[in-house]
């Protein structure tokens, strides 16, 4: 559900190039295995040990109650075969093989809805398996909220094609033409006739045998008007077990004969370009824990022990010192440092002549805005299990992309990708590239060093401190409107560094030189957020790429940079509206022609009972201690359309801001399951409130210092706004992402609500009391 695009990955990494090192590459060596070989060698790499009792079923990657899955071997299976995508079992159920991971967003259930729809099965008849490089197809990573948008076409058409084949078999069996056959719940009957002779089930037709059919994509899919399941709200298939405690998270897995492991690193990451060097290491310092031992490769240090607590305290007690250069700019100095860098500049979009129009416009607004590094901070720190042998490896982790992780692991271990099997187990919500690859590499290195299976659990400070953060950002924006409230010019200049391409484990263990991703859409000034929802004749968008070596590690964090863009951009739009004396909602309506942007804007305005009477913010500068305000904003990630309204309270004495209520609307095209999208919107609204009010990675010249929930606070129950999610259903449009697009809109809405309450534009988030008091003072 989060962020960054496979297409972009294609653009910046060379396909097929060997991963040196931990660099995320696009499945090098992952050549498709011919179908015949796939069958012949099936099972060759099945790892032959069993998990502890309760988990045995989980390890075979089988849902409880589901029929046996096919044999496993190094994938990816051939996407041009129907059998790669689904299997029909004797009990008239289907297993659908999906290349997108379940992250708690419900997309697994949604994709099963699509499969069941095309196959004419009901939801109780469709199952799936966890992602596994020996079982599931390679559909790219689960990025950019793309599970439905990019995952569903193959799954929908494969299901339609399988249904077509099944009906042809039924036609022969029943002696009736296909046109006369009717399917319900996998039972094929000859139209209008009852009785056993006139019906046959899918299970009876093919039960657990292969289709052995090429996947052509030619079978017609159902017209939307025939949908019975898609667009409805069946409940998520993972929630009952998550509520009862039966759900197996990555953190629950154990391997026989395994050791518990912890990594030992400086508390809080150091500058990306220089890593950390071990200065002194005293292995005797853990002699009081007899079962524990130190494992080291280069500057990568870990401890292993038979008992988990022994590993935890060995990591705690180990005496180690590090050489760390004092070259970070510090969280207070980071914006000036980035702004002063010699940057790689690229004009993302240029239309008309901003300068020419700006000088003569009736209303102009401009501002310099700052957004901090923010952490993924998954609620349960990442973990991984690894069993590395001389010629094979099994690694179980919570990656968003099993095949990409397989490639980087192969590079780290000195194996070929097909020798590495990666299995996905859900951890806690990752919201982008947290430490899941880092921990997988670390576990694999430790298993290789130990010669035994290893379970590595990151501690809270490892995850908070060595995350690949959503990069800090400086935005400079200016816009102009004519006397009638028409926006005539817009310019956005953004400064930030790119994502880090080498994991900490590879860097420390192998000395892999740090590298950055090259520019890609989700790392650059985003035309969709930066004025793109408005019709503006003169636009200039410039991306200033800051070299990232002397900064923190970066990666995609849910709705990457979008909150930062919208925070700056929507406040600028609001300022123009204010100058023109036009209500913020009305002003936006005057500048939008897209019915899809208008749809989400109207949806949140209506839900919040927006009063279009212009409200001069100056009037709000009353003597009241608590000022209230409302704001409206638009934004997206790369696709879909997000709108939001926020209602806030600002305590002018303490500087405390509370978001009281939020309304969020998304138009993500055809909503396969609107209930899941509403849940996603609710989460996006709450998480945006958290990120705008509280979240900020802090660091000094040497290390990150926000290492837990006290030093990196997130929103709690008492501060949580009421939320109203709205899913705009568009049956005639293709499904697009729904996991992050409301966040940008909501970030803008909160900032605009602050202005409405106080008459002050807030130039930097999070809106902490200290920052708010300083801003109010300058007003």
């Amino acid at each position: 559900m989060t962020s960054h695009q496979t297409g972009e990955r294609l653009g910046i990494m060379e396909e097929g190039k060997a991963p040196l090192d931990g660099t995320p590459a696009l499945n090098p060596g992952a050549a498709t295995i011919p179908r015949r070989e796939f069958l012949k060698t099936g099972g060759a790499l099945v790892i032959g040990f069993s998990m502890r009792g309760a988990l045995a079923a989980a390890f075979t990657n089988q849902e409880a109650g589901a029929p046996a899955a096919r044999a496993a071997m190094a994938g990816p299976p051939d996407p041009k075969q129907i059998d790669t995508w689904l299997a029909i079992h004797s009990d008239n159920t289907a297993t659908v093989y999906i290349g997108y991971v379940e992250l708690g967003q419900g997309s697994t259930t949604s994709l099963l809805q699509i499969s069941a729809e095309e196959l004419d099965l009901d939801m109780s008849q469709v199952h799936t398996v966890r992602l596994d490089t020996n079982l599931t197809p390679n559909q790219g990573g689960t990025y950019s909220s793309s599970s439905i948008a990019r995952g569903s076409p193959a799954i929908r058409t494969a299901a339609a094609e399988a249904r077509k084949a099944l009906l042809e078999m039924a036609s022969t069996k029943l002696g009736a033409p296909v046109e006369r056959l009717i399917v319900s719940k996998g039972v094929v009957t000859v139209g209008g006739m009852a009785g056993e002779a006139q019906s046959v089930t899918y299970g009876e037709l093919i039960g657990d045998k292969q289709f052995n059919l090429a996947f052509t994509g030619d079978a017609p899919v159902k017209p939307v008007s025939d949908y019975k399941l898609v667009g409805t709200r069946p409940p998520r298939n993972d929630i009952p077990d998550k509520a009862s405690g039966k759900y197996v998270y990555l953190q629950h897995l154990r391997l026989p004969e395994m050791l518990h492991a912890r990594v030992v690193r400086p508390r809080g990451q150091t500058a990306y370009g220089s890593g950390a060097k071990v200065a002194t290491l005293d292995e005797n310092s853990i002699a009081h824990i007899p079962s524990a031992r130190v494992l080291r490769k280069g500057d990568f240090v870990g401890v292993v022990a038979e008992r988990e607590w022994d590993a935890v305290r060995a990591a705690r007690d180990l005496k180690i010192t590090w050489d760390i250069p004092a070259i970070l700019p510090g969280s207070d100095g980071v914006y000036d440092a980035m702004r002063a860098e010699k940057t790689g500049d690229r004009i993302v979009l240029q239309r008309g002549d901003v300068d020419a129009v700006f000088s003569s416009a009736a209303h102009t607004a401009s501002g310099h805005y700052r957004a901090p590094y923010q952490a993924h901070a998954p609620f349960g720190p990442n973990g991984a299990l690894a069993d590395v042998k001389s010629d094979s490896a099994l690694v179980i982790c919570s990656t968003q992309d099993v095949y990409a992780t397989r490639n980087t692991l192969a590079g780290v271990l000195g194996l070929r990708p097909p020798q590495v099997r990666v299995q996905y187990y859900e951890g806690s919500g990752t919201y982008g590239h947290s430490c899941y690859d880092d921990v997988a590499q670390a576990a694999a290195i430790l298993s290789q060093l130990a010669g035994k299976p290893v379970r590595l659990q990151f501690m809270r400070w490892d995850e908070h401190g060595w995350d690949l953060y959503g990069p800090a950002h400086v935005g400079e924006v200016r816009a102009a409107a004519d006397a009638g409230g028409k926006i005539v010019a817009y310019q956005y200049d953004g400064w930030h560094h790119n994502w880090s391409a080498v994991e900490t484990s590879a860097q420390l263990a192998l000395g892999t030189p740090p590298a950055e991703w090259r520019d890609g859409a989700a790392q650059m000034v985003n035309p969709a957020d930066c004025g793109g929802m408005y019709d503006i004749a003169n636009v200039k968008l410039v991306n200033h790429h800051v070299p990232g070596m002397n900064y923190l590690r970066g990666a995609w964090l849910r709705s990457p940079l979008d909150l930062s863009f919208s925070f700056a951009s929507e406040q600028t739009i609001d300022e123009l509206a204010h100058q023109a004396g036009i209500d913020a909602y009305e002003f936006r309506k005057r500048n939008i022609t897209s019915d899809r942007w208008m749809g989400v804007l109207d949806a949140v305005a209506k839900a919040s009972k927006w009063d279009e009477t212009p409200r001069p913010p100056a009037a709000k500068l009353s003597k009241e201690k608590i000022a209230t305000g409302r704001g409206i904003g638009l934004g997206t990630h790369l696709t879909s359309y997000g709108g939001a309204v926020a209602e806030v309270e600002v305590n002018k004495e303490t500087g405390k801001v509370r978001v009281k209520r939020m309304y969020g609307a998304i138009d993500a095209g055809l909503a396969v399951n609107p209930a899941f999208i509403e849940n996603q919107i609710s989460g996006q609204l709450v998480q945006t409130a958290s990120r705008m009010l509280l979240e900020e990675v802090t660091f000094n010249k040497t290390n990150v210092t926000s290492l837990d929930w006290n030093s990196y606070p997130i929103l709690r129950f008492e501060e949580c706004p009421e939320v109203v999610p709205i899913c705009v259903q568009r049956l005639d449009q293709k499904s697009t992402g729904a996991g992050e697009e409301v966040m940008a809109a909501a970030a803008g809405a909160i900032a605009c609500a602050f202005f409405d309450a106080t008459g002050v534009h807030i130039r930097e988030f999070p809106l902490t009391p200290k920052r708010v008091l300083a801003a109010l003072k300058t007003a």
Partner: protein
Amino acid sequence: MASEFKIRVNEQLHNVSADPDTPLLYILMNDLQLQGPRFGCGLAQCGSCSVLLDGEEIRSCVTPVSAVAGKSVTTLEGLPSWYAKQKKLGKTPGLHPVQQAIIDEQAVQCGYCFNGMIIQAADLLSKNPHPTDAQIRTAMNGHLCRCGSYPRVIKAIQRASHRMNADMVTPENEMLADDTEAAGVAR
């Protein structure tokens, strides 16, 4: 040095051999192979490891195993029977009403925090069967959720509250029908 402990978890006695300062969480996860309590921070900041100790929510990640000897630990797995005993129900339901309400409200996203959410909510409702919105927020404030599921958790707790009060007057529960105190008695 390892010591022997007898600990009562979900009404069963277990003998464990562990260093006395081993946090209870590691015993529950590794020795007893329970999936409810789970590691989140190890610092008592987040609530993912919560269990009931003699009916009170505690953080098992900072509670040494030596401190629970002679006391009764209830984990997510034991919550339905803890509830049945507390409410003097004739039989143990499959799920605690909070668990059922979480499903009914589809409150979960990733769900990792829900062990603690459910344990704390069960603790709250055992003491305050009709909590207000503000009381729920205060009681739950020590439990974090990265996914932002708070609004739905609040709704689920309200739903469970209604459900639990309805439980008191179901036919199979007639012995409690006139015992208005029962819902508020924790242990």
